[in-house]
């Protein structure tokens, strides 16, 4: 079981460890980058190497690496967009403006499979996917996706000004099979390590589009995609329009129309071994984005989405207005321990799959991402 997780916030990175005793063994053990936004981080396999993205308001996005489990950090290479060719036609059709060919936000970090030493993937706003084959010492934009005509023609910003890649799912059976979630632009899949790409948001539905475009894959706004690690053909997606599940490796999606108080939200956690179990944190759709009735709940299905438990024990049940961002719900490799944090700086952990939660903090900065150390 994971004994440590990291929390990236609006004002720094916090390391939480299970180092205490008694009924509340989890402690915030360390803070780093205080005052600086940490939108994304990646604890790599082995537990000691951690990559953290910083989003300096003035100075741009940077990347830092720890090789000692977060004790010390050093700045390393950050993905950089290529020089935009003179006369390049690239206009966001919805904004009527050219997207910046410049890194705006690191929004996804994932590791390749164990046989792909040094391979990392980085999803960004305004829509570039980057790959490293030297453990993050250097990055190259995946031109096949950035130059794809559908990227230029159809992608558009969801909540952010520009489109972004927030989910990168690496198939543990084949590291060249990678699935990316794009807000907004659907679900993009490569089976050759990024040489070629295809759209696979088939079956998703976008009620926010005109009716004739609601089923167009390019119009879909998946908020977060997570696979079942042991059965990676099963993927769960918290979408702007609701919850979707795939049993075909993401090539076809089925909508789940009932899930407790709401199917709207941002985060999803998939059980690592049980493909029928997943967790969500619902909110009032679309733009209001606070818990129904001011009650923070987690919804859990154990039957592939046919029914949901509404989990409340240990969570605030009156006048709570926490929103949980897409990367702020994490699960460990056992499926028993989950942790999640909110825009209000509350942080919770469960050790029994969500039957009961412990509150670890009430006044952290707004929480962007939570990830367990493996």
């Amino acid at each position, binding site marked *: 079981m994971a004994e440590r997780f990291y929390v990236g916030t609006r004002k720094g990175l916090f390391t939480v460890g299970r180092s205490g005793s008694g009924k509340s063994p989890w402690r915030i053990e360390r803070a780093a980058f205080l005052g600086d936004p940490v939108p994304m981080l990646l604890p790599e396999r082995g537990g000691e190497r951690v990559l953290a993205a910083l989003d300096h308001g*003035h*100075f741009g996005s*940077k990347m830092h690496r720890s090789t000692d489990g977060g004790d010390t950090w050093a*700045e390393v290479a950050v993905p950089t967009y290529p*020089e935009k060719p003179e006369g390049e036609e690239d206009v966001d059709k919805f904004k009527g403006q050219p997207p910046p060919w410049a*890194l705006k936000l690191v929004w996804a970090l994932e590791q390749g499979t164990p046989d792909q030493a040094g391979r990392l993937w980085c999803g960004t706003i305004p829509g570039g996917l980057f790959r490293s084959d030297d453990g993050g010492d250097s990055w190259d934009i995946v031109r096949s996706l950035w130059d794809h005509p559908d990227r230029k023609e159809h992608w558009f910003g969801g909540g952010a000004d520009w489109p972004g890649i927030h989910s990168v799912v690496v198939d543990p059976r084949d590291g060249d099979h990678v699935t990316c979630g794009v807000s907004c632009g659907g679900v993009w899949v490569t089976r050759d390590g990024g040489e070629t790409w295809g759209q696979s948001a088939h079956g998703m539905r976008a009620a926010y589009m005109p009716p004739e475009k609601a089923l167009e894959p390019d119009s879909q706004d998946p908020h977060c995609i997570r696979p079942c690690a042991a059965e990676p053909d099963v993927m769960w997606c918290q979408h702007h329009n609701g919850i979707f599940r795939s049993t075909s490796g993401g090539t076809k999606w089925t909508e789940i129309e009932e899930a407790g108080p709401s199917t709207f939200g941002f985060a999803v956690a998939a059980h690592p071994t049980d493909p029928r179990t997943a967790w969500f944190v619902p909110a009032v759709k679309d733009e209001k984005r606070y818990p129904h009735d001011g009650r923070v709940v987690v919804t859990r299905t154990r039957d592939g989405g046919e029914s949901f438990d509404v989990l409340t024990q240990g969570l605030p049940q009156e006048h709570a207005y926490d929103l949980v961002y897409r990367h702020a719900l994490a699960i460990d490799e056992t499926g028993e321990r989950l942790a999640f944090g909110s825009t209000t700086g509350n942080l919770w952990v469960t050790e029994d799959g969500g039957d009961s939660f412990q509150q670890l903090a009430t006044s952290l900065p707004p929480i962007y991402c939570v990830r367990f150390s493996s």
Partner: protein
Amino acid sequence: MVSVQFTQNLQRHVACGEREVDGATVREVLDAYFAGNAQARGYVVDDQGALRHHMMIFVDGRPLADRRELSDAVRPDSTIHVLQALSGG
């Protein structure tokens, strides 16, 4: 030689002390400065070489006019201040 000075707030992230370098435009001056301090470049300009949105440059007290190409002219005895805007953060 043109004097280049950076906001103290940047020193928290990357060392970039005051130096004197040659150049006839802000671009030329900063290119000369960053040739000896490549890490600092990305804190001041973006991937396309434009001044970052929440950064400011003054040339002898005048705000930079060309934030994209940094083509503002400088004199041999000019002083360039690289500062952060009050926005952002």
